[in-house]
């Protein structure tokens, strides 16, 4: 699953911005290159633009200014087949897991294969064997294949998030976006999930971007940390070197207890 073309960055923003209808500027002046295979953590207070930035990568929120290129290809500006194909290569993991509760774990992971299977097969549930195989492999990679036929609603939070990651993996993506993936989980499980993401990034070389709330997680897992404040990038460096001063710049205040998860992996 290695990137073939390592000279072209996986993601490139130039002068990118998002302005909402009321004039609110959620993002402004973003110039950012993310090389293929990098593990990036984005931090910032709520409303700083983390979610907006993440959703602009797969077009859930379109840019209103500037450009975005994914692996050298400009972002399609209209919904349609091109956008869907792009999204098929980008897996997304959500804070609230977003599984179909009444379906089995396996069916949920198969949703990751939607873009590769004809519609009539997906809506009737007649998935080809090869696709089921891919889904089971994804489940094995996150270590939860024994629950393949269990109804999603019967799993714990941490297990559901693993299924969410498996669903993203099943897409065989080039990029994985994780929007506050551990915000609903306890400390021990949070570390497990972060380690899963890191391991997937290292083993499969998938470019990974994670929005994080907790500073200690960011420092520990972020190969590269980007700090957003009021929609602008105010920090871009490695995880180890974020000092408390720089933190103040990103968050506009000194770090407090809420910013640390605690717990040991």
């Amino acid at each position, binding site marked *: 699953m290695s990137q073939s073309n390592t000279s072209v960055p996986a993601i490139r923003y130039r002068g990118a911005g998002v302005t909402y209808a009321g004039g609110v500027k959620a993002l402004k002046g973003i110039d950012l290159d993310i090389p293929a295979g990098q593990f990036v953590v984005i931090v910032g207070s709520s409303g700083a633009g983390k979610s907006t930035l993440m959703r602009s990568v797969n077009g859930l929120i379109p840019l209103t200014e500037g450009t975005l290129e994914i692996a050298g290809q400009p972002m399609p500006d209209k919904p349609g087949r091109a956008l869907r194909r792009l999204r098929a290569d980008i897996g997304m993991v*959500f804070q*609230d897991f*977003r599984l179909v509760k*009444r*379906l089995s774990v396996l069916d949920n992971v198969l949703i990751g294969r*939607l*873009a590769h299977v004809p*519609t009539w097969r997906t809506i009737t549930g007649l998935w080809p064997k090869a696709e089921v195989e891919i889904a089971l492999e994804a489940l094995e990679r996150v270590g939860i294949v024994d629950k393949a036929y269990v109804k999603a609603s019967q799993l714990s939070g941490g297990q559901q998030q693993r299924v969410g990651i498996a669903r*993203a993996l099943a897409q065989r993506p080039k990029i994985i976006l994780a929007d506050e993936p551990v915000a609903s989980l306890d400390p021990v499980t949070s570390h497990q999930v972060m380690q899963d993401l890191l391991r997937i990034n290292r083993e499969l070389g998938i470019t990974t971007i994670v929005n994080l709330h907790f500073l200690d997680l960011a420092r520990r897992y972020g190969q590269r940390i980007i700090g957003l404040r009021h929609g602008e990038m105010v920090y871009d460096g490695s995880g180890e070197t974020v000092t408390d001063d720089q933190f103040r710049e990103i968050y506009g205040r000194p770090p407090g207890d809420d910013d640390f998860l605690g717990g040991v992996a």
Partner: protein
Amino acid sequence: MIAPVRPKPRYAFWGGITLALVAMTAWSAKGVGVDFIGMVCNIGGGKRLLVESFPPDFGFLPRLFKPFLETLQIALIGSVIGGILAIPVAVLAARPVSPNGLVWFLDRNFMNVMRTLPDLFWAMLFATAVGFGPLAGALALTVFTVAVISKLFSESIEAIDTNLPEAICAAGGNWIEMVRFGALPQVWPQYASYLMYAFELNVRSSMVLGLVGAGGLGMILESQRSNFEYERVSLIILVVLVAVLAIEQLSGAIRRRLA
């Protein structure tokens, strides 16, 4: 200390409403020819009718078996096929999932128009188009069921959480897949309950559709009535009463389990 001021009730508004209601009632009563006194005076005629109708002719019961079955079949077909067809109609009429504004607008109005016609009207129309008999009844109830269920169902769909559909789109699903995996799973229990409700309504309707020639018990009812066989008419009405009560209890129990 200043005494609190009692807010003045909006006399104009409530007065207007009351006036409108009274006017409506007066106009209607005149048109209808409300005559309770006359009714009481005519009770003699009623008594005679009741005497002629009782006791119900239970010996006629075996002849009702086949029409009764036909009634249930008509109701079943109408409910299931109408229920299936109602799904796309409901989906397109739900703002968060409808593909575009024009489709939504057209579908919504189509739905509202379909809802205006009572079941017996559909039965009359279909009896004209395809001839008398249970097929007309089944078609009528199918259309009626689409009207009833699609309205209820589209309102349910409008209340869904849009996060899940967003996740399906993020994974690369198209519109149909977004609906199938993101929207519908959230509302299946409600759909099932609407289906049962429609079946209840349809059993009631199918009992009487035969009065206009659309099959089922209604046809035998009409033939007996025009022959003034009132003990048989009252038997049929009794059968209808028991059947509807039974289905209602059953349906209520199932819907409570689904909730």
